[in-house]
C-alpha cells in the first residue's frame, strides 16, 4: 500500500501543529466560534447531538494493521472504546473532546493518517471498491488512481472553497461495488477496443434530497489524460455551481440546469485549453504510485480445499456461504467481516475487535484491511488454508456474523441518536429489523437483500439505493419512516420508488415483514432475488399489501 514519504509526513505534522494553535486561539478567545468553525471542519471536527464528533479519513478504505491498531488506541485514549465505520469508508468517533483533538491527530499522523478532506466544501476523501486488487472481475486496481486524485486534490488552492462538497468514487471493474453512479464524479475502469485502459466518467450523480443517477460525460478517457478531465469538471463546477442556495449547490444541479450536452461542451472546452499547459502527471509518477500498490506474492499460498474444512464445521460453512467471495488467485478468498451482528449498531467496532482484525490481517492476510461503504471490514487477500483459523478467531471476538448481503446486513447512518441533521433515529430501526429476521430464521430463505436506512433526507444511509430503503422523518414531533423499493447502487443504478405514506416506528417492522412476505409468496423460485422480483412485478402488490390486504391474496 502507499507509504508516505518525508514530504507527506512533514505536511501532516505541519497541519497538526497549525490546528493545535488554532484550537488554542479558540480557547484563549482570540477566535470566535464562528471564526473557528471552518478551521475545525477542515480537520474533521463536527459538533453533533451529544458532543464533538471526529471523522478520520481512510482514503479509498485501505488500512494496514498498524493503522487499525492506532484507530483502536484512539478510541480508548480519547473516546469510549469504539468507533463507527461509515458509508464513506471513514471512521467516526462520537465523544471526542476539543482539548484532545490535536493529540489524536498527532497519534494519527504517526501512522500516516489524518482527518483532511473529511468535511467542508472541498474534494472529499476518494472512495473505491473495497475488493480492489482482489476482485475476479477487475480490469485494474483502481487505488493508484484514487491515490493520484488524493495527492492532486489535497490542499489544491483552486478547489478549497467549492460551492459545496465534492465526492469522487472509482471502480476497477464494470461491476460497481463503489456506487460510482451516485457520486459527483464516478469513474469506471474500462478497456477500449484496442485494449487500452481508461475511464468511463459519470458526473452529477448523488443522493440526498434530489437524488440523481450520474450522467455519462464520456464513455472512454485514456488513463493518462484523466486528471485534465477531472480538473475541468471541477473547474466548471467551481465557476458556475450555485452558491446562492445550499440545497442546489451540488454539481448534479448544475448538470440539470445546463443540460448534459452544454455541461460537456464547457468541460471539454476547458480541457482543450489545458493541453498547452499540461498538468498531467508524468508516467514516472503514475508508475511510482502504481508500484506502491503492487499485490502481495500470492504464489506462497498452498492449494487448499475449503470443502474439507466445511465438513469439520457446519457453522464455518454457513459463514463462508455469505462472507467469502472468490479471489482473482484461486488459492485465495476475500473475507468480509460483518459489523452487523443482529441487535448491534451497524458499523460499530470496539477497540478489542479492531485489534483482532489487525492481528488477523497481519498474521494471515498480507497486512491488508479494507472498510467497505456497506460498513463492513474486508480482508482482501486470504490464503484458503487460513480461513478456518480466521473464522475461529472472528468467532471468539463476536465478529463471525454470517449475513453479508442479507437482510440483517443493514446500512444505517447514525441518525438522531448522534447526528444533528437527523429527523429520526436509524440505529434502533436497523437493530429491530435485524433482530426480527434473525428470530424468524428466514434470512437465508430470503436471500440477497439490501436494506439501507437514513435518518434524514441527506441520505447518508443511502436509502435511495436500498432494495428496501427507509427514510426517517419528523411528523409533528413523531418519528415517521417512509419506505422506498427497488433502489440499486450498482452498475444497474436505480433510485428506489416510494411506496406511499410513512409508518411510525412501531408499525414499520411489520410493514417491512409484509413487503418481504409479498416477495417470498410471489417469487418464481429461490433464484429470483427480491430485486429481480420487484423489477418484474413493480410497486403495486407491495403497496396493496402494506396499506391493506395480506400478502398471500395477490399470488
Amino acid at each position, binding site marked *: 500500500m502507499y507509504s508516505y514519504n518525508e514530504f507527506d509526513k512533514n505536511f501532516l505534522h505541519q497541519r497538526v501543529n497549525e490546528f493545535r494553535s488554532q484550537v488554542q486561539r*479558540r*480557547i*484563549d*478567545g482570540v477566535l*470566535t*466560534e464562528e471564526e473557528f468553525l471552518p478551521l475545525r471542519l477542515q480537520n474533521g471536527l463536527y*459538533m453533533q*447531538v*451529544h*458532543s*464533538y464528533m471526529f471523522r478520520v479519513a481512510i482514503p479509498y478504505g485501505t488500512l494496514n494493521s498498524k493503522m487499525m491498531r492506532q484507530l483502536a488506541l484512539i478510541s480508548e485514549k480519547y473516546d*469510549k472504546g469504539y468507533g463507527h465505520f461509515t458509508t464513506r469508508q471513514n471512521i467516526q468517533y*462520537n*465523544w*471526542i*473532546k*476539543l*482539548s484532545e483533538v490535536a493529540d489524536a491527530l498527532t497519534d494519527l499522523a504517526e501512522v500516516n493518517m489524518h482527518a483532511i478532506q473529511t468535511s467542508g466544501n472541498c474534494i472529499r476523501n476518494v472512495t473505491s471498491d473495497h475488493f480492489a486488487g482482489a476482485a475476479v472481475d477487475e480490469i485494474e486496481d483502481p487505488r493508484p488512481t484514487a491515490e493520484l486524485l488524493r495527492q492532486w486534490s489535497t490542499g489544491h488552492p483552486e478547489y478549497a472553497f467549492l460551492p459545496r462538497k465534492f465526492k469522487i468514487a472509482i471502480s476497477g471493474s464494470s461491476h460497481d461495488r463503489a456506487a460510482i453512479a451516485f457520486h459527483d464524479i464516478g469513474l469506471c475502469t474500462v478497456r477500449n477496443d484496442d485494449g487500452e485502459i481508461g475511464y468511463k466518467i459519470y458526473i452529477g450523480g448523488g443522493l440526498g434530497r434530489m437524488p440523481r443517477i450520474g450522467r455519462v460525460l464520456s464513455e472512454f478517457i485514456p488513463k493518462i489524460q484523466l486528471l485534465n478531465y477531472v480538473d475541468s469538471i471541477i473547474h466548471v463546477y467551481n465557476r458556475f455551481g450555485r452558491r446562492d442556495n445550499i440545497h442546489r449547490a451540488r454539481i448534479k444541479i448544475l448538470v440539470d440546469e445546463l443540460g448534459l450536452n452544454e455541461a460537456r461542451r464547457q468541460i471539454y472546452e476547458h480541457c482543450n485549453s489545458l493541453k498547452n499547459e499540461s498538468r498531467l502527471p508524468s508516467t514516472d509518477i503514475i508508475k511510482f504510485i502504481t508500484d506502491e500498490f503492487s499485490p502481495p506474492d500470492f504464489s506462497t499460498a498452498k492449494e487448499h480445499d475449503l470443502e474439507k474444512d466445511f465438513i469439520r464445521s457446519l457453522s464455518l460453512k454457513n459463514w463462508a456461504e455469505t462472507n467469502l467471495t472468490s479471489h482473482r488467485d484461486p488459492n485465495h478468498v476475500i473475507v468480509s467481516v460483518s459489523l452487523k451482528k443482529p441487535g448491534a*449498531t451497524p458499523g460499530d467496532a470496539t477497540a478489542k475487535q479492531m485489534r483482532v482484525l489487525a492481528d488477523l490481517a497481519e498474521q494471515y492476510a498480507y497486512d491488508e484491511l479494507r472498510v467497505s461503504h456497506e460498513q463492513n471490514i474486508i480482508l482482501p487477500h486470504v490464503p484458503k488454508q487460513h480461513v478456518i483459523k480466521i473464522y475461529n478467531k472472528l468467532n471468539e471476538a463476536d465478529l463471525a456474523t454470517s449475513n453479508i448481503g442479507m437482510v440483517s446486513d443493514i446500512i444505517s447512518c447514525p441518525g*438522531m*441518536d*448522534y447526528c*444533528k441533521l*437527523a429527523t*429520526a*433515529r436509524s*440505529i*434502533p430501526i436497523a*437493530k429491530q429489523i435485524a433482530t426480527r429476521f434473525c428470530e424468524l430464521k428466514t434470512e437465508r430463505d430470503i436471500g440477497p437483500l439490501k436494506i439501507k436506512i437514513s435518518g434524514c433526507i441527506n441520505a447518508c444511509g443511502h436509502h435511495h439505493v436500498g432494495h428496501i430503503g427507509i427514510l426517517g422523518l*419528523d411528523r409533528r*414531533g413523531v*418519528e415517521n419512516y417512509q419506505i422506498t423499493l427497488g433502489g440499486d447502487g450498482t452498475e444497474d443504478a436505480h433510485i428506489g420508488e416510494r411506496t406511499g405514506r410513512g409508518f411510525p416506528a412501531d408499525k414499520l417492522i411489520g410493514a417491512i415483514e409484509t413487503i418481504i412476505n409479498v416477495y417470498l409468496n410471489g417469487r418464481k423460485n429461490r433464484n429470483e432475488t427480491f430485486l429481480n422480483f420487484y423489477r418484474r412485478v413493480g410497486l403495486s402488490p407491495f403497496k396493496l399489501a402494506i396499506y391493506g390486504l395480506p400478502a398471500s391474496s395477490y399470488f
Partner: protein
Amino acid sequence: MRKILTANYLLSGKAIYLTSEKKWIENLANAAVFDSQEDADNALTFAETQINKLQSAYLIDVVLTSDGTPKPKSNQELIRATGPTNYFHGNDCYWNEDGA
C-alpha cells in the same frame, strides 16, 4: 411558553443546561425554566458573555412533566439530554420507552 437554556462546553463538548443560580449542569431536570421571553433572552445574553467557555448556547422549548421537571419538546433535544438510545453512555445514561 416555557424554555430552558442549553449549551455545550467548549473543551469537553458536553451538553449542559443553565440553572436559576446561573450555573451550568449536565442534568436537564434541574435547569431553570423561563416562562417569559424576557427571562429567556436575559439568560441567552448571560451565555454570550461566556463564549470562551461555551461552544454554543441556545434556547429550547420544554414542557413540564407531572413532577414539575422540564422535558424537551423535540426528540433530538430529548435524546441529547438523556443519551443515545443504542448505548448506555449519554448524559444520564438511561432511556425508557416513554422517551424520558
